[in-house]
């Protein structure tokens, strides 16, 4: 039982299913993106040059990346205070907090998106409050704007950031904070010099999930963003299911894959850099 080896007979069933239903379709996707015509007869990079040669499509990639980064930044702003609050709470409060964090995570993305329509619509909660308080004379336009979308994504993705962050921050030695305070550092300084750097691994794990999921949040993007805001997922859907241009849809999909992977690698690189610092 010491230095156990991998039991390949037990790993094989899932491995074979993954090869057949996961690796094979993704390789096929790559292959189709390298075809020049819609009948998949000719190989060529035509669709790749069409995509990257067009300023509109490059803009879509850029907007998708920006949306992912914006979602990470806004969730981070709330995640650290919430995680600190969680770590200082009594076990009883912690249990309630975990429910509060898990409930939105386990509620369907479609429902959460729907909730934000009710909140952001012309007759919605935000507008009623804004009009009642006299903050605005006319209803604000929040649906079909990037602001509204980032706001909704923040709530939708927040649990993904909170869970890894809390699990790392719970493991931190509370004496570190006390030591920092005893040596005369204020709370702000203690937070930025002690808590923030030490909880960075948790943040990176959370940021990876938030980034990947915000970039690919098709339902939220299409319902709250509307037709005016185009991101890679809606472009993929439209090309595959409306235009039926499979090679071009495949190019968009591989681009989405690479975009998300690039973001994740960047975050991991950031983590390594932060640790050696």
């Amino acid at each position, binding site marked *: *039982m*010491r230095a*156990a*080896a991998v039991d390949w007979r*037990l*790993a094989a*069933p*899932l491995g074979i*299913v*993954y090869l057949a*239903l*996961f690796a094979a*379709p*993704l390789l*096929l*996707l790559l292959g189709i993106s390298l075809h020049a015509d819609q009948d998949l007869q000719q190989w060529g990079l035509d669709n790749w040059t069409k995509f990257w040669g067009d300023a509109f499509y490059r803009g879509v990639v850029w907007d998708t990346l920006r949306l992912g980064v914006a979602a990470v930044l806004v969730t981070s702003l*709330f*995640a650290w205070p*919430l995680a*600190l*609050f969680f770590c200082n709470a009594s076990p009883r409060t912690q249990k309630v907090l*975990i429910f509060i964090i*898990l*409930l*939105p995570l*386990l*509620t*369907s993305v*479609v*429902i959460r998106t*729907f*909730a*934000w*329509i*009710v*909140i952001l619509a012309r*007759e*919605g909660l935000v507008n*009623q409050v804004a009009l009642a308080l006299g903050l605005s004379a006319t209803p604000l336009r929040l649906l079909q704007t990037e602001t509204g979308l980032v706001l909704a994504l923040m*709530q939708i993705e927040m649990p993904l950031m909170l*869970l*890894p962050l*809390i*699990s790392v921050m719970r493991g931190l030695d509370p004496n570190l904070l006390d030591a920092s305070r005893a040596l005369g550092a*204020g*709370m*702000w300084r203690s*937070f930025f010099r002690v808590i923030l750097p030490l909880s960075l691994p948790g943040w990176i794990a959370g940021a990876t*999930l938030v980034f990947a999921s915000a970039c*690919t949040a*098709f*339902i939220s993007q299409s*319902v709250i963003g509307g037709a005016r805001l185009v991101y890679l997922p809606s472009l*993929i*859907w439209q090309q595959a*299911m409306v235009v039926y241009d499979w090679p071009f849809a*495949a190019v968009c*999909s591989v681009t*989405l894959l690479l975009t*998300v992977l690039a973001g994740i690698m960047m975050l991991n690189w950031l983590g390594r850099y932060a640790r050696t610092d």
Partner: protein
Amino acid sequence: MSQRRTFADQSFSCVFGGLTLLGLLILVGPVFIVLITSFTTSASLRFPPPELSLKWYQALFDTTQSAHIHRAAGNSLWVASMATLGASILAVLAALAIGRSRRPAARALEASFLSPLILPSLAYGLATLMFFALLGLRPSLTHLIGGHLVVIAPFVFRTTLATVTQLEPALLESSASLGAGRFMTFRRITLPLIAPGIFAGAFLAFVASMDNVPVSLFLSSARTDMLPIRMWGMMESTLDVRVAAVSGVLILVILVLMFVMDRLTGLTRRMSF
């Protein structure tokens, strides 16, 4: 802490306290707003609702008027059950295969079994559509089960792996030295100890399959409609208030399941800690 609270420290408490309150409100607020909206009398999504009634729930449970919603819900339940069953069996075997190994091969396998969690599943959804279409297969629930299985297996794999790595080797060794065979040891020692991890993972996998959009979006058709896709359609065309009623039902089911699963498996402890 016997230190005097400085102005800077007070500003820290204010900012962090304020963000915490706002954060909590943003986390749970929308769920309750949907619940309240679902009891509206109005045909618009005005919040707060002018009056409360069960009108939209009656419309939702009407078998002729909402037949397509019922069929989509039935499809989703069937696919989620089958995919969870398949994913659980395969993922538990895989977790047992590498759980007690520290070799590089084990780490590589772990990373690849978890990879569907991070790779954009929308790209995977399109890939499966092309894959099944080029194989000449017509859309069916079986394809949906296959696609969902791949996407949800990592949930069971992750929670089961966490329990397998915590298994006490001495327990297995003493079981073996007392004459139990491999199967006996598995059934009497290993399985009971890792069961909470399996159940917690299976629960998360089931929920993930019920909610799945990226794969269903491409693999479902008029005949094999899935609930989230049907709800998306209802939201896109006319803002049908029945969406709120469906949401209300699903939120209540999730709340009940969360309490049950917490009792059975300590789900809240198992989520990340």
